[in-house]
């Protein structure tokens, strides 16, 4: 358990020391929103939700893509002697989840500032952000471990993860559109939340089972 917290702290310290990584993501985010505002000016609900989730996915891919690549060969070996692979994965996963959730909140904030926010049911939207961030980080953390093994992380990350992210994206889109519905017109989204849970459980479960195989060399 102690190893878990130490590893979690390590992720955080590394992120801070390499300010440029986090700064890069922020800049990426700002410039994307700027382009959207410059081209669309006003955004209807459908476009808003679509843009929100597309940006969320791209930002997550670039934020998590470096997760395992930054560990060079030597550090891999070092970590291997220190902790169980599952604990390493859990620490990365939790850290990435917190990072993504923060980034998604930030996207929401910037969006509201620049083009407004059509979200009515704020609680439900927060919940879908929370679950969506979790699902994205569970899938992307695992894929980034695979991509790091192949040594070419940039495009490989996108190629491997996009088809897998589509269900998360579509479910998130559906719930978000519902949170933007006019009061009293909202539909029952419990089924979609269940699907989100199923994706999280599947990707986390398979991740923890399969990660030792990726880890060993």
């Amino acid at each position: 358990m102690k190893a878990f917290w130490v590893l979690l702290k390590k992720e955080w310290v590394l992120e801070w020391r390499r300010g440029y990584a986090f700064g890069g993501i922020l800049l990426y985010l700002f410039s994307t929103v700027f382009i959207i505002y410059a081209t669309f000016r006003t955004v209807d609900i459908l476009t808003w939700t679509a843009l929100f989730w597309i940006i969320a996915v791209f930002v997550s891919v670039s934020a998590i893509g470096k997760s395992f690549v930054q560990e060079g060969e030597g550090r891999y070996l070092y970590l291997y002697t220190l902790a169980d692979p599952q604990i390493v994965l859990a620490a990365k996963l939790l850290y990435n989840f917190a990072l993504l959730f923060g980034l998604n909140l930030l996207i929401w904030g910037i969006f509201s500032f620049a083009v407004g926010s059509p979200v009515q049911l704020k609680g439900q939207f927060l919940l879908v952000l929370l679950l969506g961030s979790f699902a994205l980080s569970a899938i992307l953390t695992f894929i980034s471990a695979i991509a790091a093994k192949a040594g070419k992380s940039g495009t490989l990350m996108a190629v491997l993860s996009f088809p897998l992210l589509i269900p998360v994206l579509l479910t998130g889109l559906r719930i978000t559109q519902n949170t933007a519905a006019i009061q009293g017109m909202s539909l029952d989204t419990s089924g979609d939340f269940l699907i989100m849970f199923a994706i999280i459980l599947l990707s986390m479960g398979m991740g923890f089972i399969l990660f030792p195989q990726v880890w060993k060399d």
Partner: protein
Amino acid sequence: MIQKNWWKGLGVVILIYVFVSGLLVPLKPGITGVSPGSAKTGDVLSVAVEGYNSFFLKGAATQKAWLKLNNEYLLEAQELEVLDDRHLNAVFTIPAFLPVSGKVQDVALILDNAIDGPSVLPSAVFITQDSIQPERGQREWPVVTPPDLHVIRSFAFPFRNILAESIRNTYFHVPLWFAMIFLFLASIVHSIKYLRSGDPRADHRASAFTSGGIFYGLLGVVTGAIWAKNTWGAYWSWDVKQNMTAIALLIYFAYFILRGLFEDPEQRARISAVYNIFAFSLLIPLIYIIPRLTDSLHPGAGGNPALGGEDLDNTMRMVFYPAIIGWTLLGFWMVNLLYRIKDLDFKYLNAKSNR
């Protein structure tokens, strides 16, 4: 030899049966068109009916025609004039009022004779009424007394409106998908085997089964697209089923890209096995989610006919189920050849490097 390879012969024999019966067995008689397709209340409506695979001349003595409204009312033709085997004229006197409160109502056309048996064209004629008096309409329209239709037992596939001859795709497109799923499942089994044993031959099998699955997947897309062109009017219409297929194929293409990136065969085998299992487990929610999101035109969704219930009749079952087995066996045979080549390659390379 025969004892070990009987299943290959069986697969080929079944597929020959599927091709021959699937393509040569005729369709049951049906109705392809009526004109005019609209009428007003009070008209004496004379419709020219075009039949398909029908024998109106032979069955002229027992030929009957009805217009059916909402499964409740049945209006028999007063006069029938058979022109030839494919064409006849039917004359109906439409009552002055409709028994419903809508302005326009569609009615189905039913034909029946002793040779062809019954055939139905849903929404054949649209009847417009100017003044709406359902009570009077209910008195004027004859209530259904089930007519005794001729039951013809013949070895023929059912005629379905719009689908027509393209119904034969049931023996190619659908079983190809079934076989594809079986191949992917087999690939997963071998990936798990590889992770447990580290036997390179399991990896050869896993990748060969994935290739086979992708090949069948592409064939499924092509047969589906040709069918869609003839029934939906476009090869690709961004239907949810088509999108799902595209995503599934993307995942498996990514699998091969991933394989290509590793130099070390042991690492390639391990990482690609991991990705194979991970991706397949995430395909499961995909298969359940996407169909829920929107309506689909695909058979089996939104009230379109598909495999369930009466849509797949017994004659079709006699070809459809063997088709699944046949395509699956052929797929396993192709994969078998593929992984044996890989095994030989591996042996040869090992022998060479040991020398």
